[in-house]
């Protein structure tokens, strides 16, 4: 679904990604873990066209070359991102947030997809006329995910969806990620919560200061010394 080869991103003098390669196969969940400042968000922004890589190739759905396309074109192609830190539209209502999420669509199934979001997150249905600012942190994260789903992505990019949420809410979010994947969307999941992420992921990658240091299936990665020590907090 998504193949990244030798990706480099620079912010002026800062070389944030140094030749990163990664693959998200069709129908799979890939997890990208790494510490703060490793370059995870940078990678997602590059994939969704919000920053331009200085080097490297990104291919989507087998043929489509990314990297030169504008972000609105990428959404149209089926790539949708849930940005870090619940970037919802706080002064719009819940339902308006979802409407804006369907911004590029003209088909008649928008309503049906909204029903699906209500099924995934019944709490949002109850609060649909409230302004998004009044939602709790977890509900805002649900809304951000719901909004991204409204564009019917084939590839969903999630940037630290569990950040700052209560354990129970984290469970809910990860259960939903599985459900969304079950509906056929491929997912690239960025997380610091390596334990949860590697449990749901088919494939995992570890990013360290801009370089990919490890990759493998979820269980494989959980067994490596490095992951155990630095990301799972085991001695």
């Amino acid at each position, binding site marked *: 679904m998504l193949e990244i080869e030798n990706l480099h991103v620079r912010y002026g003098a800062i070389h944030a990604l140094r030749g990163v390669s990664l693959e998200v196969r069709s129908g799979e969940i890939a997890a990208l873990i790494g510490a703060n400042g490793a370059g995870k968000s940078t990678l997602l922004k590059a994939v969704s066209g919000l920053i331009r890589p200085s080097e490297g190739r990104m291919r989507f759905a087998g043929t489509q070359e990314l990297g030169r396309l504008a972000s609105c074109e990428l959404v149209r192609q089926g790539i949708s991102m849930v*940005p870090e830190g619940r*970037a919802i*539209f706080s002064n719009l209502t819940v339902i308006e947030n979802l409407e804006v999420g369907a911004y590029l669509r003209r088909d008649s199934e928008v309503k049906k997809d909204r029903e699906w979001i209500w099924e995934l997150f019944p709490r949002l249905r109850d609060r649909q006329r409230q302004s998004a600012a009044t939602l709790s942190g977890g509900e805002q994260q649900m809304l951000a995910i719901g909004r*991204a789903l409204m564009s019917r992505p084939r590839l969903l990019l999630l940037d630290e969806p569990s950040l700052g949420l209560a354990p129970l809410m984290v469970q809910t979010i990860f259960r939903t990620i599985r459900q969304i994947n079950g509906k056929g969307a491929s997912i690239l999941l960025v997380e610091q919560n390596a334990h949860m992420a590697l449990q749901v992921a088919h494939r995992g990658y570890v990013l360290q200061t801009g370089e990919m240091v490890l990759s493998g299936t979820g269980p494989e990665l959980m067994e490596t010394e490095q992951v155990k020590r630095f990301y799972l907090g085991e001695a």
Partner: protein
Amino acid sequence: MKVFWQNNMALLVVLLVVAAAGFGFQRHLDPYYYKILVDVGIAIILVVSLNLINGITGQFSLGHAGFMAVGAYASAALSVLAAGPWLNGLALGGAQKMVVEFVALGVIVIVGGVAAALAGFVVGMPALRLRGDYLAIATLGFGEIIRIVFQNTEQLGGARGISIPPPRSDFTGVYVCAVLCVAFIWRLVHSVKGKSFFAIREDEFAAATVGIDTTKYKVIAFVLGSFFAGVAGALFAHSATGYITPAQFDAVKSIELVVMVVLGGLGSISGSIIAAAALTLLPEILRGFAEYRLVVYSLLLVLVMLTRPQGLMGMKEIKLPWHRQPYQHKPVA
């Protein structure tokens, strides 16, 4: 066709009422109050259009007076060089004169608007691609530069200013423009795609992730806002005084307009209308206080901002019954 009437019936009625009121006011209202009413109408156009940029789309323009100046001087040039002499040559009278002058004013106002919109595009295009405060700096600079340019253009009167021949922007002309401006911006931002403006204001980055071409919408808001600033400038130039000087369009004027937008509520069109009316009327009401006028005025502003930091209306709107639903260009099947 039926839908067109449904959507525009109210607008047409309002326009007819405005025309009738204008007719009545011209004959029966004291010229002093008449002038204030016209000033209020022009202020409404300026503040609502600036709200589209600063409030609804969340950008920060500090040069609205500059775009007003472009509209004022472009329309002045047109009137002095062409429209004025031509109208004079026709030597019309009575109803015929009224109609021809009204149409001429329409053309002049559109020319002023288009000139300002072009200036807005040239200034906004590079500044809006970048995030942050570039727009504030660019527009502030533009406002000052354009004022100095007019100050030094002797053909347009230079610093002394320029006198402008009829047609005059009377109550009817000003309020027809104000109603059209408000209706146009209201429909734009309450249309289905119009939520994009609010989305950009709320979180530009997130707006991009749902596929909104943020630069495009920012430029649309800015160019449209500048267009209406130009319209207001043209109306101002052709108001009863018929005389403009570059000093009338300085940075203080731009800041006054920003104050009105903030006071009314960033993002609230009805708030902008109320604030434009209130802050235009207030100095007149305070005339009795003579030298304390500015002090009282500032104190009132501070008081409002302390008690209602979100502005008089916040983001809320006073909605008419037929505005409860989002505006639809086509009937929902």
